[in-house]
């Protein structure tokens, strides 16, 4: 039978203590980039092993070599300066990049780490990129006269990276656009940008969106030029499903079933209930089950527990429904 209720993750995993320590040591120039890179690969290999042991279907590299999802790309592109820290919520901060010159891709950004990770496993590894709209929206702009000009320039850079990922063997490419639900009046621009980024790709494409007023961009959002939209459902008590009752969800869905910003571990029963709610509206072969968002803000142990609950919930639902 076809694949149903495949399990995956949204992207980031927490870094082990030795890697956090090494990143601090690099900042203090106590170790070199090579030593840090060796440890990043070690942590990536550990996460690949953990995901395989848990029985996850589509793996991620866990972004052990990335700080923030926008900062990482800005640091590895031309035209950006990196500023001081700004707060995003609670006690979380990031360095918000500043576009100071024309921005663009100097060379491949994520390809080496993708090849390395895919080389560790026979399961598919997702290629993970941050989308043009989000990079622009989460940066300061001191150079471009309009937001649109800034966004489209970034779209061309992200497209080049996505093409390189496909050539390197990626079967799934996820281009995260968490900022896309921010301004309904700019949805058109964001869609056009994502269209440029995904143009000519033949692999399964995904975009992850979170924290927004979906009522204002649904069902228009279904026109996003990707195969799958990954959404946080657990954090909003599955409220989004109500929108799907009024207008069917026509794409594949990445179904977030555990809240990533909460220490509390969901029960398997909660996860199962969430999956079953979605199954009332979307067939199993179009549902990919995962946490709401990247798990990097949890501890390593919390992240693993949350992933185990996701996998166990899926396995039990599949068994009950005779899905394999």
């Amino acid at each position, binding site marked *: 039978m076809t694949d149903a209720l495949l399990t995956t993750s949204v992207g980031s995993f927490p870094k082990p203590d030795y890697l956090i320590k090494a990143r601090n040591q690099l900042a203090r120039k106590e170790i070199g980039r090579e030593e840090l890179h060796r440890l990043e690969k070690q942590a990536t290999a550990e996460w690949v092993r953990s995901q395989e042991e848990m029985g996850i279907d589509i793996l991620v590299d866990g972004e052990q070599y990335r700080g923030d999802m926008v900062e990482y790309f800005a640091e590895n592109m031309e035209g950006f300066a990196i*500023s*001081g*820290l*700004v*707060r*995003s*919520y*609670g*006690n979380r*901060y990031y360095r*918000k990049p*500043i576009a100071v010159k024309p921005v663009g891709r100097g060379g491949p950004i994520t390809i080496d780490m993708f090849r390395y990770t895919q080389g560790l496993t026979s399961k598919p590894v997702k290629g993970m990129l941050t989308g043009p709209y989000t990079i622009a*929206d*989460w940066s*300061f*702009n*001191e150079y471009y006269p309009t937001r649109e000009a800034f966004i489209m320039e970034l779209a061309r850079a992200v497209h080049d990276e996505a093409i390189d990922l496909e050539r390197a063997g990626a079967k799934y490419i996820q281009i995260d656009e968490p*900022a896309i*639900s*921010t*301004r309904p009046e700019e949805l058109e621009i964001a869609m056009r940008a994502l269209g440029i980024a995904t143009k000519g790709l033949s692999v399964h494409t995904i975009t992850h969106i979170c*924290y*927004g*007023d979906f009522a204002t961009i649904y069902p228009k959002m279904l026109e996003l030029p990707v195969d799958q939209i990954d959404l946080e459902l657990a*954090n*909003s008590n599955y409220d989004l499903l109500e929108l799907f009752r009024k207008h069917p969800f026509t794409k594949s869905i990445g179904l977030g079933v555990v*809240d990533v*910003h*909460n220490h509390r571990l969901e029960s398997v029963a909660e996860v199962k209930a969430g999956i079953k709610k979605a199954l009332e509206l979307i067939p199993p072969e179009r549902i990919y089950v995962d946490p709401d968002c990247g798990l990097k803000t949890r501890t390593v142990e919390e992240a693993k527990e949350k992933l185990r609950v996701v996998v166990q919930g899926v396995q039990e639902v599949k068994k009950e429904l005779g899905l394999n």
Partner: protein
Amino acid sequence: MITTVLGNYPKIGFPKAPNLRTALNQLDQKKITEAQLKEVEDEVSKATIQDQVEAGIDLVTDGQIRWEDGQTYFARKMSGFNINGLIRYFDTNTYYRQPIVEGKVTWREPISVGDFQFARANSSKPVKAVITGPYTLARLSKNQFYERFEDFILDLSAALNREALALQTAGATFIQFDEPSLLKNKHDLPLFAEAAKILTGGLSAKTCLCTYFGDIEGLYPKLFDLPFHAFGLDFVVGSRNFDIIDRFPQDKELGLGIIDARNTRLETIEEIVEAVRKIRRVVPSERLFVSPNCGLEFLPRANAYNKMLRMVQGARQAQKELK
């Protein structure tokens, strides 16, 4: 012409104050106590005020260093609320925990008064008190209790009026109510007018209604009839405000939010002078507050400081040129 800031300020990045981010992590890991955290917050609040005073700001705030966000800071201490998951704050890349209203909203105890008193005792300049307005607090919350949204707003207005009165009793002479959500729901102006009466009842302190993230098209000119002494408006995102406003009441003051608090690009002194020149046709400079368009916490601390410095330079230049 008075220079002011709207409210929040970066919480970290001070050369001489302890790091609040580290302290909060330590509290999370139970390595320090609540009392030790409070000491750090005190030091950072003092550093925030110091930054403003050094930059030449005339009317300062406490920087809202102890606020996790504008909603939970008030909702946590009122009856009727619970706190839900993270949700995006307007079109910014910042998030807040969404209050859920699960019962009748009432004021229980002073919320911001202690923080205000601390700021006043540690500032050589007058301190402005800031309250998240009832309309915005209601719109940004999830209502699971009130059958009619109006009842929610009116109860919240009464509750926040108690807070304003408590601030006044504690010595506040200038109280600002932040209502960015009003710009996103302009049809609700009549409801807000009713709320505003309750909100400002019994207050002799100077009050300011502050809106940002948009312009007042559709609210003008009725907005200025509301019972506030001053109106703070966004002239960056809402740059159309320059064209919209051609009359302004003679007994009221205008907050001219012309410094972009959401981008690092520094305004030139000429741009600031030009903005003052444009608005002077409608409001004379002695009834103007020059400010950023919203809170400065969207910027890293060094950029926020430089923005204030530039704003003060620009305002002084405008005063000189436009006498």
